[in-house]
């Protein structure tokens, strides 16, 4: 029991899921649904696909409940699955299939954000252009660099967690991030 008490809360919940407690799975889902969907959305840049992949992530978590062992942080494991699915989707070339709906979705999202902020038309246009450039700059990054930036910037994962999710060393993660931010600085410099 002492070992279980020392475990992080998510791992403890997952151990309860292993014992057949479905309410603990619901708690885990509520805690991590948002970050996983958002991470996948920024990786694949497609709303529908990101939710579909997120469903698969949680389905795999549920399927693995019987064999779950808390050897790493739960979020590390979760993002490892999410990264694996996102990279496979990108490598499978499905990106092109979803590209058509991408512009519309992004525009819709932009419009929602703009409406909420109640900006002027001119500000809206500037904002839209800037956001598009950010999205495109990220989209052009090599997939592993993109995944590293997403986990570092938006999910605030530690280097060690990113390393486990990407199946590489911490120094490799630092190099990935260094190169990624270097590229982003160069691509977004004209916007300053």
């Amino acid at each position, binding site marked *: 029991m002492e070992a279980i008490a020392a475990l992080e809360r998510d791992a403890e919940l997952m151990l309860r899921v292993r014992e057949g407690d479905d309410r603990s799975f619901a708690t885990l*889902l509520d805690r991590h649904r948002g970050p996983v969907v958002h991470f996948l959305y920024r990786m694949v840049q497609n709303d529908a696909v990101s939710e579909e992949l997120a469903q698969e992530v949680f389905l795999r978590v549920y399927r693995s409940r019987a064999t779950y062992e808390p050897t790493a942080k739960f979020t590390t494991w979760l993002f490892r699955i999410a990264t694996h699915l996102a*990279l496979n989707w990108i490598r499978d070339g499905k990106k092109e299939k979803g590209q058509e709906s991408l512009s519309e979705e992004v525009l819709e999202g932009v419009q929602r954000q703009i409406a909420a902020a109640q900006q002027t038309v001119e500000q809206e246009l500037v904002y839209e252009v800037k956001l598009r450039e950010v999205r495109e700059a990220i989209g052009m990054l090599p997939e592993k660099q993109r995944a590293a930036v997403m986990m570092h910037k938006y999910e605030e994962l530690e280097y060690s967690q990113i390393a486990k999710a990407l199946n590489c060393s911490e120094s490799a993660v630092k190099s990935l991030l260094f190169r990624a*931010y270097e590229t982003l600085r160069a691509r977004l410099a004209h916007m300053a």
Partner: protein
Amino acid sequence: MECLTSTKSGAEILLEYGSGTLEPGKAVEIDRHIENCESCRRLVAAQRDVWERLGQWTAPAVSTDFNARLYARIAKENQAPRWRHWMQQWTRPALPYALWKPAAVAAACAALAVALLVHEPRATETNPHSAQMEGGRVDIEQVANTLDEMDVLMPAPSSSSAM
């Protein structure tokens, strides 16, 4: 402190500083350093700018029926016959994508090694005489028999020459 942009580790520290993820103790040192170092100051400013722009990209809200759809899938899976679960376990990739390449190479090497072992020519197959010579032992009786047979095959001396 020398300019941090001149080394990779130094630049990585600046990157963390510009992203606001450097621990406070170290951040104070960098605060002091960038006051007098133009190139470090520029790098930090550029990184802060990128960090801020990335922060503007908000993801859309998750669908309200996300949980319902997931639970429906789980229920469907639970209702499926046992053999389908078993099949899924077998058809699902056992290794993450990154491990497939080295695993495939290792499997190919193992297959090649097995193939070489199986098809390695045996000494007895290629040289039947070597079995007789094995251990330096020669069957004297067999040699004598062979010589006798050779004598039989030799043409008999002609009667004219005998005369």
